[in-house]
C-alpha cells in the first residue's frame, strides 16, 4: 500500500485524533458555552503525561516508567483533568471570559514547562524513542498504520457514542440549561458552577486523552508539537463543523485538517519559491477567515445543533 492510500491512512489517524480533541472542546463550548483558549495546553499535558509514563528510562531524569501504553494514555488524560481542575476552580465561579484568559495563560505556562523542565519533559530536545504500542506485531509500517487507524477510529467512535448518550441524559439537559439560562438552572436546584466544572474537566480529559494517542502514533514528543496555532486549528474544526453537534465535530476535524494540508500542498505547488515565505501566513489567514466568516454567516456551522433553545437577542 503506497501512494495516496498510504497518505490517506496517515491523514485519517491524525484527523481522527484531532476529532477527539474537537469533541472534548465541543462538550465545553458547544454544550456548555465555555471558551477554552488553551486547548493546546491540555493536549500537551496528555501527550507529555503519556510520554513520561511509557517512555524508557533516561539518565538523570524524572519518569521513564516504561508502563504499558493504555495506562500511559489514561494517566496523561488524568493529568489533563487535574490541570483543568486547577484552572476551573479558579475561574468558573467568575465572569465567563476569565476562563478564556486563564486557559490561554495555562497553555503558555505548560509550553514553558515543556520547553524548560528538562528533567521531566526533555526540554527543547523533547522525548524520543517512545515505544509505539504493538509495533512488533506488524510486518510493515503500512500495516501498522492501518492498525493504528483502526484503534483511533474505534476510540473516536466510543467517545462519540458516550458523548451522545451524555448530552441526551438528564446531565446533558442540565448542561444546556446552564448555558441558556443560568438563573433558571439555579432555580431548579442545580449548581451551575459545579455543572460547568464537570463539563470543563471532562472536556479537557478527552483533549488530554487524544494527546496520548498522538504520542503513541508519532513516538516522539517535543514542545514544537504544541504551538498556539493548534488551538486555532482545533477551534476552526469545531466552528466549521458545527458546535453543539458531535458529528459536526468529527466532520470539522477531517474537513479542516484536510483543507489545511491540501492548502499547504497547493501553496507548495503553485507559489514559486520566492513567494513561499508568505504561504504559511496565507494558510493561517484562511483559517482565521474561516472561523470569523463562519461565526458571522453560518453560526451553526456545516452540521450545527438544531435550534431548540431560546435566543436572548438584545439591542446594543
Amino acid at each position, binding site marked *: 500500500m*503506497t*501512494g*495516496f492510500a*498510504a*497518505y490517506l491512512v*496517515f*491523514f485519517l489517524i*491524525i484527523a481522527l485524533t484531532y476529532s477527539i480533541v474537537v469533541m472534548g472542546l465541543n462538550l465545553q463550548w458547544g454544550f456548555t458555552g465555555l471558551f477554552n483558549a488553551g486547548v493546546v495546553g491540555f493536549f500537551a499535558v496528555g501527550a507529555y503525561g503519556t510520554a513520561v509514563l511509557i517512555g524508557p528510562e533516561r539518565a538523570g531524569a524524572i519518569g521513564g516508567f516504561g508502563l504499558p501504553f493504555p495506562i500511559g494514555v489514561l494517566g496523561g488524560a488524568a493529568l489533563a483533568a487535574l490541570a483543568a481542575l486547577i484552572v476551573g476552580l479558579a475561574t468558573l465561579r467568575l465572569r465567563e471570559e476569565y476562563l478564556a484568559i486563564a486557559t490561554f495563560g495555562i497553555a503558555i505556562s505548560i509550553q*514553558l514547562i515543556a*520547553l*524548560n523542565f*528538562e528533567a521531566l519533559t526533555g*526540554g*527543547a*530536545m*523533547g522525548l*524520543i*524513542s517512545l515505544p509505539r504500542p504493538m509495533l512488533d506485531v506488524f510486518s510493515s*509500517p503500512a500495516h501498522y498504520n492501518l492498525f493504528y487507524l483502526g484503534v483511533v477510529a474505534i476510540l473516536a467512535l466510543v467517545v462519540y457514542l458516550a458523548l451522545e448518550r451524555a448530552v441526551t441524559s438528564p446531565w446533558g439537559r442540565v448542561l444546556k440549561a446552564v448555558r441558556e439560562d443560568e438563573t433558571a438552572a439555579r432555580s431548579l436546584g442545580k449548581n451551575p458552577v459545579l455543572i460547568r466544572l464537570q463539563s470543563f474537566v471532562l472536556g479537557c480529559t478527552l483533549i488530554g486523552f487524544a494527546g496520548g494517542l498522538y504520542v503513541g*502514533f*508519532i*513516538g*516522539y514528543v*517535543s*514542545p*514544537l*508539537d504544541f*504551538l498556539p*496555532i*493548534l488551538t486555532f486549528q482545533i477551534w476552526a474544526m469545531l466552528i466549521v463543523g458545527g458546535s453543539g453537534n458531535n458529528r459536526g465535530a468529527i466532520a470539522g476535524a477531517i474537513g479542516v485538517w484536510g483543507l489545511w*494540508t491540501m492548502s*499547504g*500542498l497547493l*501553496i*507548495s*505547488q*503553485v*507559489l*514559486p*519559491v*520566492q*513567494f*513561499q*515565505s508568505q*504561504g*504559511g*501566513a496565507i494558510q493561517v489567514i484562511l483559517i482565521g477567515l474561516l472561523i470569523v466568516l463562519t461565526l458571522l454567516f453560518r453560526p451553526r456551522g456545516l452540521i450545527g445543533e438544531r435550534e431548540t433553545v431560546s435566543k436572548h437577542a438584545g439591542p446594543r
Partner: protein
Amino acid sequence: MVAGLQVGTATTASAQDCQVSIGAVLSITGSMAAIGSAIGDAGQLAVDQFNEAGGVNGCQIRYVLRDDQGSPNVGVDAAKTLVEIENVPVVLGAIQSGVSLPVLTSVTVPAKVTQISCCSSAPSFTDLAASGGTDGYWFRTLPTDRPQAVVMANIAREKGYKNIAVIYVNSDYGVSLSRQFKAATEALGGQVASMTAYNQEQASYRAEVNSALQGEPDALFLIAFPADGATAAREWISFGGTQNMLLSNALRADEFVDAVGAQYLSNAVGIDNAQVEGPSVDAFNTAWSAKFGSAPNGPGLHTMYDAAAVALLAMEQGGEANGTVVRDSIRLITGGEGEVVNPGVEGFKRAKELIAQGKPVRYVGATGPITFDANGDVTGPYLIWGVKDDALTTLDTWDSARVDAAIAEIDG
C-alpha cells in the same frame, strides 16, 4: 500572487517529458522563518544548476519545498505527502531537530526514503543512528555540536577569557552546544560564569542579559539565531556587557552584524563550519552572488546546498529515484578517491560525464570535502570569522586534523 501563479505554471509546463521530484521540508514560516527561506533558495540553486547540467538520468528535477511552519505535526504531514504523493526518494531537511526527528522516525525511515538535513545538529540523531534507529537513511551536512564547542573553547583559551557567560537559545541546538561548550571549557581549565537560556522570538532579552551580567564575566558566548541574537547582543552591549564576544555558527549573517552595529563587534569572534578557501567554496559563493546579488552569509546556506547536491549526485550515481539506492550511492560519491567535482553547472556536468563512464566521483562541496561517518554525521573543517570594516571576514581556519587534535586533547 497572480504573477506568482503564472510563474509557477510556466516552470511546470517547461519541464521535459520525464521528471523526478526531490522534496524539502523547511521552516519557511514560524520561528525559523528568518533563515528558512534563504535555506530554501540554496536548495533551489543546486536543483537549478543540476537541471542546467542536464538533470538526473536525463530527467528534469522538480524541487518540491514544503513549509513545516516550525511545527512537527505540520512537518510530518508535509513529509508524508512528499513521500506518498510526490514519490520523492529524498527529503531534505528539516531545519530544527525537533521537526527532523519525527519526520525521520515516522515518515522517511519507515518508507525507506533518504533524509538529509542541512541544519539539525542535535546529538540525539547520532545516538539514534548508532542504535540502528535510522537504518542508514539519515544524513546531515553540518557537523554535530561537539567539535564546534571544542574549537570555541580553544579560542576562548587563546584569547585568555577566564570567566565566560553563556547565553543560549532554548532549543535543541542551543542546549546541546552550550553544554558541550561548558564541558570543553572546563576541561581546558576555564570557567563558565553562567548559563542563561532564552526563549525564542521574544521582543526583549533584558532579564536574561541582566541575569548573565550578574557573574561579572569577562566574555560572552552567544548561541543564537541572527534575529534573536541581535536583540540579545544589543541589550548586552547597551547594558554594559563586555564586547569580548564569542558567536555561534548561526550568527554568521549580515543581518546580525547590521542589527548590532559593526563597531561593537570588533572584538567578537565567531565560528562556522563552512570552509572558505578552495575552488569548491568559491564556486558556490560565486553562483549564489550571481543569482541573488548578495554574499551567501547566513546559517544553513552552504550545508543546504551540499545536502541537495549530494542527493542529486547520488540519484545520478544510483541510476534510479529510489530512497534505498540513494542512501547507498551517497557514500560512493562523497568519500573515496574519485575525481573531485565542485559545485556549479560545470561541476555537475563533469560529475555526470564521469558517472556515465563508470568512473568514481568525489564531491567536494560548498562546505568543503564531505565524509559521512557510519551514523550519517560529518566532521568538517571550521572557519573563524570576525567583523572588519563593517563586513564579515575570515580570521582563521581549522582543518579537520586540527579539530580532531583539539578533541583528542580533551578526551585525552
